[in-house]
């Protein structure tokens, strides 16, 4: 009789082991295909969404493959810091706001921007029209929300420009902002930070409980940091400095940039198709919201007067001076970016007859629906 309990225990243990083994074997997935493609990884700033459409398009349209690259795209998340991932050699390429990369570099991480994809800032401050708070100056003494954690400098610079001291809560009260816009809809703050491509749409996709209809752009004041003159460079591509000093890696980077830029050009010229590619990679994403996002992201890239991805010196120095004012960086950055690889990539595309500036690009009009569906 004693043995039967042992048998039972063994049976259960064996079943558990089999289940675990099955889990391991299925999770391991298909065996890696052998090919001559160069394997690289791209670490995104945030989860899959149209903000990164160009890279997904380059992969889906086979631009990376044609360039001899096998690119793995790693989505980001709340605990993922792209600078750490790239510095820790978990990815060759990373995407983040340029000021974040500067901060990491200032602390000793040898990271170099090789392509500044977004030419203008998408950050805005939202207020309700009926409050009359339509300028930064009028926010004196008010509650202003931001996500903080490295995303606050454009807003802080704007408030400072009008004599407030946001770092010490003098003249203005800074409130930590959650991911969603509920608190703004409830009017718990006077002004909230919003990216044109995400949070602004979230407000316009919500119902006004008084009218029963969606909120309209005319209900809001949208104060763009770009217009205030405190816009900073946002999404750019960076790599490790020691990695990019290698000639072979420079060739890989040039190919990566050219294919990625081509992906962004595709998204500019094929808005709806590109949204489809994003949705295929994020099956739980709401389509209407992503279509809005794609259109707004295009507006941050295009037109790109120098050609997509080439750093604009004026925007660079503005980003650096704001970063220094708020001690994001202690010393003036040196060698934090290079434009030679992006220039070469743009030249390659030009030779292929690709429009790399998008001078004639016109922003589409996207109608938002309830819930972003």
């Amino acid at each position, binding site marked *: *009789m*004693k043995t*039967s*309990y*042992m*048998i*039972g*225990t063994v*049976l*259960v243990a064996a*079943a*558990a*082991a089999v*289940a*675990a083994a099955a*889990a*391991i074997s*299925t*999770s*391991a997935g298909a065996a890696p295909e052998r090919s001559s493609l160069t394997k690289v990884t791209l*670490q995104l700033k945030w*989860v*899959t969404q149209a903000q990164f459409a160009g890279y997904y398009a380059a992969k889906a349209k086979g631009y990376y493959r044609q360039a001899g690259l096998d690119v793995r795209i*790693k*989505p*980001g*998340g*709340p*605990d*993922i810091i792209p600078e*750490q991932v790239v510095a*820790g*050699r*978990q990815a060759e390429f990373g995407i983040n706001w340029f000021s974040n990369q500067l901060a990491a570099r200032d602390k000793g991480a040898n990271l170099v921007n090789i392509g500044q994809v977004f030419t203008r800032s998408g950050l805005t401050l939202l207020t309700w029209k009926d409050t009359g708070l339509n300028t930064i100056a009028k926010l004196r003494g008010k509650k202003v929300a931001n996500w903080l954690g490295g995303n606050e400098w454009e807003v802080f610079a704007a408030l400072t420009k009008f004599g407030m001291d946001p770092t010490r809560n003098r003249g203005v009260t800074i409130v930590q902002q959650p*991911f*969603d*816009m*509920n608190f703004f*809809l*409830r009017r718990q703050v006077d002004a909230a930070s919003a990216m044109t491509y995400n949070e602004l749409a*979230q407000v316009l*996709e*919500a119902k006004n*409980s008084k009218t029963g209809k969606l909120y309209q752009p005319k209900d809001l004041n949208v104060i763009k940091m770009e217009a205030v003159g405190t816009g900073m460079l946002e999404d750019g591509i960076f790599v490790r400095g020691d990695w990019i000093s290698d000639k072979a890696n420079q060739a890989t980077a040039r190919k990566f940039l050219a294919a990625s830029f081509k992906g962004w050009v595709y998204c500019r010229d094929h808005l709806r198709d590109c949204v489809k590619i994003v*949705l295929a990679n*994020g*099956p*739980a*994403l*709401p*389509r209407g*919201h992503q279509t809005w996002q794609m259109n707004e992201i295009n507006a941050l890239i295009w037109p790109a007067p120098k050609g997509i991805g080439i750093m604009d010196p004026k925007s660079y120095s503005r980003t650096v001076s704001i970063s220094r004012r708020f001690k994001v960086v202690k010393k003036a950055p040196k060698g934090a970016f290079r434009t030679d690889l992006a220039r070469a990539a743009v030249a390659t595309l030009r030779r292929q007859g690709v429009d790399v500036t998008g001078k004639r690009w016109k922003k589409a009009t996207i109608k938002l629906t*309830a*819930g*972003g*569906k």
Partner: protein
Amino acid sequence: MASSALAIPRRSARATAREHLGDLAVRAGTFVLVLAALWAGWEAYRWLWMREGWTRPFVVDETTMPRIHEIVGQLFERLQPGGPLLIELLFDAAIFTAKEAAVGFALGASVGFALGVVLAHSRLLQRGLLPYVIASQTVPILAVAPLVVVYLGSLNVPAWFSVSVISAYLTFFPVTINTLRGLHSADARAVELMRSYAAGRWSLLWKVRVPASLPYIFSALKVSATASVVGAIIGELPSSIQEGLGGAILNFNQYYTLDPASLWATNIIAALLGITFFIAVHLAERLVVRRAPENVA
């Protein structure tokens, strides 16, 4: 005579079957009743708070507390035109997370049991190590998870395995503590009897101590089973894994203002996964403990 002798057990078998059925009906009835009460409680709270406009502890409206039928209904909605139903999407995500959690649970339970056995046999080790075992659980998992991901990632371990390790971290502790306690719970007379037979440590362990500890170990495994699911969900966040329930929660959290029902629906599926794990351990317990010597003999 022979036929009546056969007839009696048949009748009694039918009687016990009827009893079982009655028992099952009572259980099912209570289950439905409790579920209905919870549903009614939710709706009543919602209705009262909205009618009175109470704002404590929080404002109640369509966003903070969607209707239950809306949450359930959301499971059968398509998020994208032509895309899968939410429940199909979440089912796939749950399977993905279940794999991570199962590996984590197996890993955590084995390590936990082994550690418990080792600690039970050496007072010195117990004194030396137990404080650290306890300390390990006071460090929040949210702090540990990114470290595990970064460290294992640098060893080129697949991302899902890092998630399993995080899940194992939440699993092993109750198992260790209860194994330790369970091994000491063996009847002193049985231990003495075995010693008088000159039984070695090994046979004492397997023939007396482990069987005695099984009820303790299984209560720990039940706690661990649900914890392993929680660990897997949390572990997905710093691991760039979007295919599991953690990824789904992060995504729907982002769009909560627009679509609160999807996040609640995801929570329901996550809870169901935890319950499934619990039931699996419960069934295993019935299989093993029923056969344990003290219950069989």
